[in-house]
């Protein structure tokens, strides 16, 4: 067991902790920058099993920060879950790596968590629709999850322990939408690693049954800021995800963001789960900074990226012209509109 000797020498883990890590199952949602780094750290640490869900494939623009992938993966356009599992098995053959190439929707996440009861869910997604689903599934099946996100040089992380800490819905009254994304504001690799350092440290603590950090951690690696906030006061008694009268809104079909192909028009229509007036100023300024021309009237605005035209109505409804493929539309939608 020389392989894990240095980790076992670390007193809070020890030999017993290492044995405990070997018996744990992690569910990783998303295999982009956060996902790749989370997976590599946990696989090297000797986790028992890791299930990786991702719908995307490896592209050249991923290689700058998505540490598991190679030029060959991008050239072959390998699905991220598959490419990740090949590299992870080469790193540590002791670990059971289960790739799932699929869209992480409510049904799939609930199926995996309900059937396999992972010990912890790690969020490595790029949007809040999926995070709210993870948040509800975590509460329903009593499985902790670890939020992590970053844009630019800014990142944050938070651990949700059902029945103990406030859940993500307690902290957020609305789903952030049209705010900065990695495709509008950019992203540098150091902040990815800082988020992942927090997520994996907390995951290891859960694996060895140590006390997790209950504070919301946020930082900016470029501007040298770091802060922790005690959020326990924000736990809401009437929260529909974790309160006594919970309804798990993100698991209900009517609350899903819906993607539909408009036949014969090379267009996919997106109806977001969260209706209502949106604040688009940030998005519009990012698009303008990137040299993307935006046309606007009182009811909608539109812009074109590569061959895809986005039309965004004031109620949040979006049309993406130039594709009939729902998965591609999904990727574009979350890339540009968050």
């Amino acid at each position, binding site marked *: 067991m020389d392989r894990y000797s240095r980790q076992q020498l670390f007193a809070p883990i020890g030999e017993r902790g290492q044995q405990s890590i070997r018996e744990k199952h992690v569910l990783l949602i*998303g295999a*982009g*920058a*956060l*996902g790749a780094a989370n997976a590599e750290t946990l696989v090297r640490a000797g986790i028992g099993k890791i299930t990786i869900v991702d719908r995307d494939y490896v592209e050249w623009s991923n290689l700058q920060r998505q540490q598991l992938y190679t030029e060959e993966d991008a050239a072959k356009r390998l699905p991220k879950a598959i490419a990740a599992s090949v590299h992870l098995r080469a790193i540590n053959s002791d670990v059971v790596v289960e790739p799932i190439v699929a869209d992480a929707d409510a049904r799939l996440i609930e199926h995996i968590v309900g059937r396999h009861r992972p010990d912890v869910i790690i*969020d*490595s*997604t*790029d*949007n*809040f629709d999926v*995070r709210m689903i993870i948040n509800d599934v975590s509460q329903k099946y009593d499985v902790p999850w670890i939020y*992590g*996100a*970053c*844009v630019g040089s*800014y*990142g*944050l992380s938070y651990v949700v322990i059902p029945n103990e800490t406030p859940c993500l819905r307690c*902290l*957020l*009254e*609305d*789903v*952030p939408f049209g*705010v*900065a*994304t*990695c495709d509008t*504001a950019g*992203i540098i690799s150091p902040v*990815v690693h800082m*988020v992942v350092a927090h997520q994996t440290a907390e995951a290891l603590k859960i694996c060895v049954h140590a006390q997790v950090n209950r504070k*919301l951690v*946020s930082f*900016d690696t470029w501007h*040298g*800021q770091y*802060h922790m*906030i*005690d*959020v326990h*006061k*924000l736990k809401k008694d009437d929260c529909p995800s974790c309160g006594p009268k919970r309804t798990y809104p993100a698991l209900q079909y009517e609350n899903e963001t819906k993607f539909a192909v408009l036949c014969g028009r090379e267009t996919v229509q997106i109806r977001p789960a969260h209706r209502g007036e949106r*604040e688009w*100023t*940030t998005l519009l300024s990012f698009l303008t900074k990137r040299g993307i021309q935006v046309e606007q009237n009182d009811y909608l605005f539109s812009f074109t990226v590569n061959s895809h035209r986005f039309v965004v109505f004031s109620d949040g409804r979006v049309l993406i012209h130039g594709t009939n493929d729902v998965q591609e539309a999904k990727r574009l939608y*979350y890339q540009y509109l*968050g």
Partner: protein
Amino acid sequence: MRCIINGEMIDLPAHIRTVAQLLQHFRIHEKIAIVEVNANIIMKEKYEHTAIADGDRIEIVHFVGGG
């Protein structure tokens, strides 16, 4: 007025007197931000009525979705 915001001393225009106005000034959507003034977390429904004063140490955490 000068406040320490996320660790940096910042001069604020005179018309900014409350947490709600501060968030508006930085164009941060109220519902997706968590604000601490002098290490006290401020409940969202109190943003409009929470005054800020010269020398306050303010932390603004906003949620992002990338990853």
